[in-house]
């Protein structure tokens, strides 16, 4: 059994939109172990993005504990949170969010500036299959290629945790599939914990653990005894 990495303990999140309080998360509890590939699924508005934002240190919980590596990140101040994002977490966004004015290589190099324990950017880009495109700017790359750069950028920091928010949301079927394959391979090779958000229930079988979210609460947590490779999944 792997070591526990993340613990959500009775996490709640409330927004006030104007004067109306909105409960985005109510009493959320789950555990994620080191090296696990976790998929969080739910319809839009279910609260999955809020979980990711809190876990990524981009947003704070209203109450409850979020323990990462035995530290409660809800107690972190802004500086500690920034360091946490810089050192421990790698992000992959739906819309890639590369810096348009930097080349592929520079984007990766730029992001590792904030991480002490980083990997060689060039090697990582080679790993994601973009060694020939390293001097291209984002606008010169296809969507799939941009997402690969984004993944390279996230893992080059050598983070504990890779957070992916609908990484295939803007990609076509085949490109999306190859991106998921890349994430799957990275999980296998490096034993990095990956948390992936999607509304596509079909890809759930590729995960070690599937967390279903509905209306701000956890609907179910399933552990796949035998997970399928993404190549075996169709949707």
């Amino acid at each position, binding site marked *: 059994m792997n070591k526990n990495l993340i613990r959500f303990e009775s996490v709640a999140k409330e927004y006030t939109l104007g004067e109306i309080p909105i409960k985005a998360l109510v009493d959320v509890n789950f555990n994620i172990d080191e090296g696990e590939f976790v998929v969080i699924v739910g319809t839009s508005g279910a609260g999955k*993005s809020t979980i990711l*934002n809190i876990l*990524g240190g*981009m*947003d704070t919980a209203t109450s409850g504990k979020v323990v990462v590596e035995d530290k409660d990140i809800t107690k972190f101040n*802004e*500086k500690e949170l*920034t*360091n*946490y*994002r*810089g*050192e421990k*977490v790698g*992000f992959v*966004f*739906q*819309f890639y*969010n590369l*810096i*348009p*004015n*930097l080349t592929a290589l*520079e984007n990766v*190099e*730029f*992001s590792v*500036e*904030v*991480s002490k324990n980083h990997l060689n950017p060039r090697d990582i880009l080679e790993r994601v299959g973009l060694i020939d495109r390293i001097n291209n*700017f*984002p*606008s*010169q790359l296809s969507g799939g290629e941009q997402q690969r750069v984004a993944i390279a*950028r996230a893992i080059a*920091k050598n983070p504990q945790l890779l957070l992916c*928010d609908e990484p295939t949301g*803007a990609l076509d079927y085949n490109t999306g599939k190859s991106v998921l394959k890349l994430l799957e391979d990275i999980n296998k090779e490096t034993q990095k914990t990956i948390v992936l958000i999607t509304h596509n229930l079909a890809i759930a079988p590729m995960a070690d653990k599937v967390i279903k979210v509905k209306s701000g609460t956890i609907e179910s947590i399933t552990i796949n005894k035998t997970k399928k490779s993404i190549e075996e999944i169709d949707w």
Partner: protein
Amino acid sequence: MGKLLLKLLRDLKEFKGQFISITLVIAVGAFFFAGFSTFSKNLSEYSSKYYEDSNLTDLWVYFDSISPEDINIFRQIDEIKNIEGRYVLDVNQKFDEVTTTLKLHSIPENNKINKIQIIGGGRPTNFQSIVIDTDYAKEHNFSIGDEIEISTPFNDILLKISGFGESSEYTIKSRDTSDFPPNHKEYGIAYVSESTMAYITGNNNYNEVLIDVDDPTDAELVESKIIETSEQTNFLYTLKRDLNLSYKQFTGEIKQQEELAKILPLIFFLVAAVITFLTVSRLVDSQRTQIGIMKALGNNNLKIISHYLGYAMITGLVGGIIGSVLGSIFLPEIFMDQVRAIVSLPGFRINIYYENIVLASLFSVFFGVISSYLSCKKILKESASSGMRAKPPKEVRSTSLEKNTKLWEKLSYGNKLILRNILLNKKRAIYSSLGIVCCVSLLILSFGYLDSRELLIDKQYNEVHQYDLKVVYNTPIEDRNNLGIPINSLYYNTLAETNVVITNIDEVVDSNLIITSKENNFINNYDYNGTLLPLDNQGVIIAERFAKNYNLSKGDTLSLKLIGSEYKGRTIDVKISNISVQYINQEIFATPELLTKLGVNFPPSTLLIKAQDSMDIDNIYNTFNTMNNVKEVKSIDEVQKITESGLQNLFNMIVVLIICAVVLSSAAIYNISIINITERIRELATLKVLGYHRNKINKLIFIENILITIFGIVVGIPTGIVLYISIIKRFTLDNMVFPIILSLDSILFPIIITISVTILCTLSLRRTVKNINMIESLKSIE
């Protein structure tokens, strides 16, 4: 349209920082525009009315002496409407600490030309009553009914003040061109009745005749007819209205204001237009899909474009009205302080002209509408469907800087990011630096002006005039050993001064001829390079401005008609042997030897004195002031103080200018940074998510702003220097030349101020950066 208006107002609220700063820059432009136009319009309307109401004479005719009967011969000239004779002479009044000069005029009972305006009391109708000018009266605390004793070349007489008055003939009460700004303590204008004057001079004769012609354009014709008719009389010379000293100076000043009214507001309007352009471009860009939707919903281009022009109209109207109202009220007040120190304008009140406010607001709206039209016309050409699609990403290329790989390699990624951002948005970077360029230019102009003012005073009173006291005797000095000069405590030089009229140039111009020996080193002439120009016996030295005005150069000959009864209208021809810079006044210098050669003799009547020990100046002053044969003693310190106070009021103007320059650059930098931040909000949010500390992000924005600022400064310095030189040249008064000089400080201060403004603006943006929501980066592109 109703709902679009609602959207417009909500947008204004959302981008309030930007719209407020645009409104501010527009307001500054309108402030200057309305202020300057109101001021110059007030002055010109007032002056033309003043000159008309008081019936300022068209022609002055000077005689040695002419009897009232003799002036009747001029009445035969058809074009003449009115004619009036008067006797004018300088008289003195002795006070404990100073001897003053009053220019005393006889004034007929039925005064029709150069009518005096009585401010308090009554006309000098009674025998032995006098009207004095208000400034002189104020300096000496005179009130109506006071008796004053004056000494004339004929006798001493006691006169009772019947009232105070002003004349349009003396809006600027200077004795001559060398007396500027006017010294109201030592020089005044006074009027007595013809009978009082007859009592003083011992006869009824006049020495000046004022001619009022039916049609002012006939002045020239009348002038030549008068010269013809006056052959038999002891006629001296004539002077047309536009050559009258005070008229010339005053109308010249109005013209300069009108010049400035054109340049300065334009700068502000242009910057406002550029900022409006950038802001509305940004707004239109960010609402690209909304425009697509509006089109898809069937709104026509006109409706959409008028919606976006609405922003410019609102900011233009609000800024234009606020600025022009404030400008009309306050700017003329600030200027009037300066004008009042020099010019006497009885009953002058500042009127607000609503047409100027309307015009300023129209200009503000016009510039805004044009610039926002330019910024949204491109998007309107797109079809509704392409408008709703996201904008294709901007083509990013390697910049030219990257070819120099060594330098490029050394830069951190943050710096690479900044440089690419600037180089790839060159146009925007240049527009943003425009605000800085204007700010630096205006600051250099302001500080340069202060430098010029300081140097003017320093040069005039430390280099050109090196004496402490100027003593003028009533009569020419016959034997200087008999004067009782305390020879052991001072050095002295002598000089003679006389009025001359130059007759062989385009206009008839009167000037001051100063006759002094080559050895006199208390008054020095320099050329522009600072080389001392000694007098010689071959010719005269004239002022550089004078030479330029009348196209004179070294070696030319001047015909000088000598004024003064003893010379009987004699004219001498002199060669110009040198041309010197004369900061204050324009004089002609000659040696006694040169004049003797030409057969005229000017015995000196003035001493220039330098104390051996500067502690003794007061004693020496008192010694001379108590002497009977001394007409007046002038201390150079006193003259310097008057010049300084005359120029002091320029200071207010400079302060206004500096404040406006700072407003301009803050608005520009603030707005550009906000645009920069909102445009890259996803990028900055991503940086935050990636674990970049806020300070690092702030640093990125800061360095970018500093680079733009530095670029603006580099361009702004030469622009500012050109602006300064051209404005100083235009602003030169007839008898004051501002030396062109820029000290290191005048360059450094603008740089420091501009960089500080940038730093402050960037600091104020820290909150905006702090408020960037990281979740923003997760959203799709709008």
